């Protein structure tokens, strides 16, 4: 934001700019900045914020003193007896699940989004095809949750009214309870996330692909490169910055994800994620200290992305 593009004649009145900023600054400090600081303070307190966290420690139990809520948030549900028990139990916690979400959902949305953007570019019904893939972005996660809960429906009788189990049984398999079988259920939920967010990745990647000059691709083809090689060696490197932005945006979105899990399983059967856990601690167990500690951990994980965002912004401004 170079100051040089502000006309000289406009540099008058020291107060005026702040009057224009005032409404936004007040609302943002009150609803984002102040509560963030307050949350950090509350995370070191007990369940209603009246005493420090160490007072909740029980004798003979492990205790991290003032960081007791963080101990609970980070170690609850994990068995530290051996590496093997740690490994197994970790993947059942909300952090383990969030890690699965990050890996599978980011790979799924970016992978399918990129592939579809490339393929749709070659057909005449491109606009329609892209609108269909993008459509889930307009509906709520709650609506999407219902749509897929119905696809995953598990009937205890012969008749399967869920599409997926109907396909499974018609192929001679046994119907599966997709929502309550650990291991399968988190994957089933991630599929819903991919269904919603692929349109977002596709749209942004498609715009980037279209900005790649045709001459470069033509030159590669003339030189005898196959479509496959041209895509991986030329297209992908050119749009790499955009791919990285999409990946980071997806990781942030996944970390905050709440509605799908809340509506489809309520975090039961080993499908809990960080955002739903925070909600459970705060609004079902009414434990302010534990709830805020989970929120702080969430923001700590996101800090690198905040840094990345600001750095990207500065780089953009310099090239303006």
């Amino acid at each position, binding site marked *: 934001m170079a100051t040089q593009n502000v006309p000289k004649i406009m540099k008058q009145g*020291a107060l005026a*700019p702040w009057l224009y900023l005032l409404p936004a600054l007040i609302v943002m400090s009150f609803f984002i900045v102040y509560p963030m600081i307050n949350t950090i303070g509350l995370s070191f307190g007990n369940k209603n914020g009246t005493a420090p966290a160490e007072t909740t420690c029980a004798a003979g139990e492990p205790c991290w003193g003032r960081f007791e809520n963080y101990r609970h948030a980070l170690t609850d549900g994990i068995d530290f007896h051996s590496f093997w028990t740690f490994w197994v139990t970790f993947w059942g916690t909300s952090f383990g699940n969030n890690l699965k979400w990050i890996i599978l959902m980011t790979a799924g949305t970016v992978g399918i989004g990129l592939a579809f953007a490339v*393929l749709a570019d070659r057909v005449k019904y491109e606009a329609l095809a892209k609108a269909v893939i993008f459509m889930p972005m307009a509906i709520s996660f709650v609506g999407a949750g219902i749509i897929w809960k119905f696809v995953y429906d598990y009937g205890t009788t012969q008749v399967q*009214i869920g599409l997926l189990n109907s396909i499974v049984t018609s192929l001679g398999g046994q119907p599966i309870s997709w929502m309550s079988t650990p291991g399968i259920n988190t994957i089933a939920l991630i599929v819903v996330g991919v269904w919603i967010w692929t349109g977002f990745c596709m749209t942004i990647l498609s715009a980037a692909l279209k900005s790649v000059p045709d001459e470069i691709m033509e030159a590669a083809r003339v030189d005898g490169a196959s479509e496959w090689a041209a895509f991986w060696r030329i297209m992908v490197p050119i749009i790499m910055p955009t791919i990285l932005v999409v990946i980071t945006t997806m990781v942030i979105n996944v970390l905050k994800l709440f509605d799908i899990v809340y*509506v489809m399983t309520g975090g039961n059967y080993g499908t809990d994620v960080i955002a739903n856990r925070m909600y459970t601690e705060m609004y079902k167990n009414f434990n302010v200290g534990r709830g805020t500690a989970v929120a702080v951990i969430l923001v700590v994980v996101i800090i690198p992305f*905040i840094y990345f965002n600001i750095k990207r912004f500065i780089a953009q401004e310099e090239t303006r």
Partner: protein
Amino acid sequence: MNRDRVNKFLSKVPTHFVVIFTLLVWIVPTFGLLITSLRPVQDINSTGWWTVFSPTPVNTSYATYCASCHGADGKALPNADLTDPNVMSKYSRSLQLLALLKKDINGQPHMGSTPLPSPQEAADIVSYLKQPAGTSAAPRFTTSNYVDALVGYRGTRTYAQDCAEGKQSPDLSCTARDFLNPRGMGRAFINSLLVTIPATILPILFAAFAGYAFAWLHFKGRYALFAILVGLQVVPLQMTLIPVSRFYAQVGLNGTFLGVWLFHTGFGLPYAIYLMRNFLGSLPSDLFEAAYLDGASHWTVFRQLVIPLAMPAIASLGIFQFLWVWNDLLVALVFLGGTTPVMTYQISNMVTSHGAGWQLLTAAAFLSMLLPMVVFFAFQRYFVRGMLAGAVKG
């Protein structure tokens, strides 16, 4: 020449195949929801939604023993209409039916030369004739699920049936007033609108002010303040939920629209200002210089130059924020809850607390998707543009 075209077509076949397959995977779940929401409840629970596309299932026992005289639809004999409930209610058990079939009609055996059905087959026929969609032309589609969802009906039959018999639950009056029943989706639709419209206008207004200052006014710390703003865009909502809800509880803002409007404004602003500032900053500076030379004040420039020129950005932001607030569950859950339920809350409540049947869930979900879909297909261009301008939103 011709061979080239054939080759070109053939080389694209795998592409078409993959694209169309993906499109089907994306459409079919939503399509299934729509079809299901229009089916009678008995059908939803007894057959998959895809069966509506197959011809009426014919019961083999009925076809073997009855169809030759009574017809495939059971209506062939006018004085023995099998779809008439008054006739069939006398034969609701297989023994009653078998007794009837053994009797002569007009001196002739009922079944003619055809052997009697076995008890098992007779039971099969009876249960087949009981089905409303069986022999009769019972409708395959109904709008009653939507009515039930709108009024918040929670019985085991349908709202219309209960009202016809005067058996409705105490909070329903069977008049148009029921559409405003607090448990129903009709009321939730209005609540969603009341939440969403101000929560869309407020942040855009404030962002236009701030965006103008960031783009065209000179003040100390402009760059640093804007960099902080860029960082704030990705702060998760969860980080501030607890202090704000504690504060709201103290000042009595919990469960009020004002509380939700302000919260959504706070979280919509970083992205809105970012977009607005980038858009306004790309306008030519001569424009502003000329206006100032003519003696216009900041306020005049803002009202008569900035707002009209910023319309494309305002449209993008408006659609973005509208969909964001309309589709939000977490904020509505925490700050509004059941006192003034919005659509997303009402649906999640149907799932988690009432275990509502598919007939209600599918209709309710589709009702909540109606307005976003219309907005999306009407203004898709602006939505995509807003997303491309800055792909990060808390």
